[in-house]
């Protein structure tokens, strides 16, 4: 279980690294001249994590400044190596319009894991003290409950 979790976290980090690299590429860099640098950057990032390697393919759509970039990469796991791809599309104003994980794994377990990551963009959130969040109009949260509920609950706790 713990190993499985570690593996999921590792794949998550890898995917995040890939996505971040593409975001950096698409948003910050002109498409035509910086492919090589991105390739290097991605590879470096992957190498820091171990035995993975990255290969980048970028393509400008030609319409306005909308851009799409895809990176194919592979990573090692106890069962061998698996391929995965990430695609990010950005419109003319820099807003991400598409972020996809391509499931390229063949091994059934790897496939399942990649699919679960493709499902939503996994985010790493650490939170912030509410008192440090400025310029807000309200706080959204699960509903405060009635006094009756809270009294019943404290009564229940007292009995235990």
């Amino acid at each position, binding site marked *: 279980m713990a190993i499985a979790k570690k593996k999921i976290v590792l794949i*998550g980090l890898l995917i995040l690294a890939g996505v971040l690299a593409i975001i950096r590429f698409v948003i910050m860099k002109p498409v035509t001249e910086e492919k090589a640098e991105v390739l290097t950057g991605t590879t470096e990032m992957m190498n820091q994590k171990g035995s993975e390697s990255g290969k980048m393919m970028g393509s400008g759509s030609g319409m306005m400044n909308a851009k799409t970039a895809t990176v194919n990469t592979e990573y090692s796991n106890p069962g061998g190596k698996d391929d995965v791809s990430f695609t990010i599309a950005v419109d003319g104003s820099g807003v991400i319009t598409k972020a996809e994980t391509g499931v390229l794994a063949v091994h059934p377990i790897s496939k399942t894991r990649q699919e679960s990551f493709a499902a*939503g963009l996994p985010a790493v959130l650490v939170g912030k*003290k509410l008192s440090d969040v400025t310029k*807000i109009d*309200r706080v959204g949260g699960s*509903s405060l409950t009635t006094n009756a509920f809270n009294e019943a609950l404290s009564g229940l706790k007292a009995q235990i």
Partner: protein
Amino acid sequence: MDTFDFSALGTKWSILAFGKTFSDADKKAILDMMETFENRFSRFRDTSEVNAFRNIDPGVYEISEMLFQMLERAEELRKLTNGRFDPGLGLLLEEAGYDPQYRLEPGETERITLSHWNLEGEKLFIDGPIVFDLGGIGKGFCIDEVATLLRTLGFQYFLIDAGGDMYGTEKEDGSPFRIALEWPGKPDTAFGTVELRHQGLAVSDTFRRRWGKWHHILNPKEKSPVEEVIGVSAVAKNAFDADCMTSVLFQLSRKETPQVASILDGHYIVFYSDSTVDVSAHWLGELF
């Protein structure tokens, strides 16, 4: 800016209005509407319509237009979740202890057999006694009703905060309402912000209404509380859609979430019990 605070549907409401203040007549109209809604649709009011099928023979019954609207949507959501979202689970919630007396002591939940319901034309078919719990759709519906009423009363720019679920227009200067979002189970911590502009927000977690191993979001098929998902926030074009979305996402695996979310046309953040978080691709706001 003017504010109107009141209690209704078991929580504290607060309406912010810009460009117009609340007259006594405005306040009365709002409170009257809330009282009517609660009388008709609260599981905790004996005479409510959701309690009308508690001791009744199987058959086809006339229902009000508003209940029809809510159940019509619920029927779609039930299909999207393969039966896991179902407002017909009132008797199970009661047996688990979430009853009008707030007993909060679970009884023999495995003994409960939930009756089946479906709509036939504009009528309701039930195959046995049933109690509807509109938690998870009713509040959103009600927030939108309040929004409609506010417009009728001449309010153009407002934010309705129903204890953490909301609907916001835009502000007078055209800027959106900015809302901090509470970390599930950590009331002093925010995980991000969201911007509302003519949109609804729904936030739900399994921490606030929790007793023993139970909380208020149940899987009626398993007759047990939902454990994989611990918190969901959703933004959609109105509060009803957002509320429906959170209720559905509690009942889905993370693999099913993106497709269903796109059908429901909203943005989401889902917190899982394994400490991971999934965010839809178009979240408007910051994440910390």
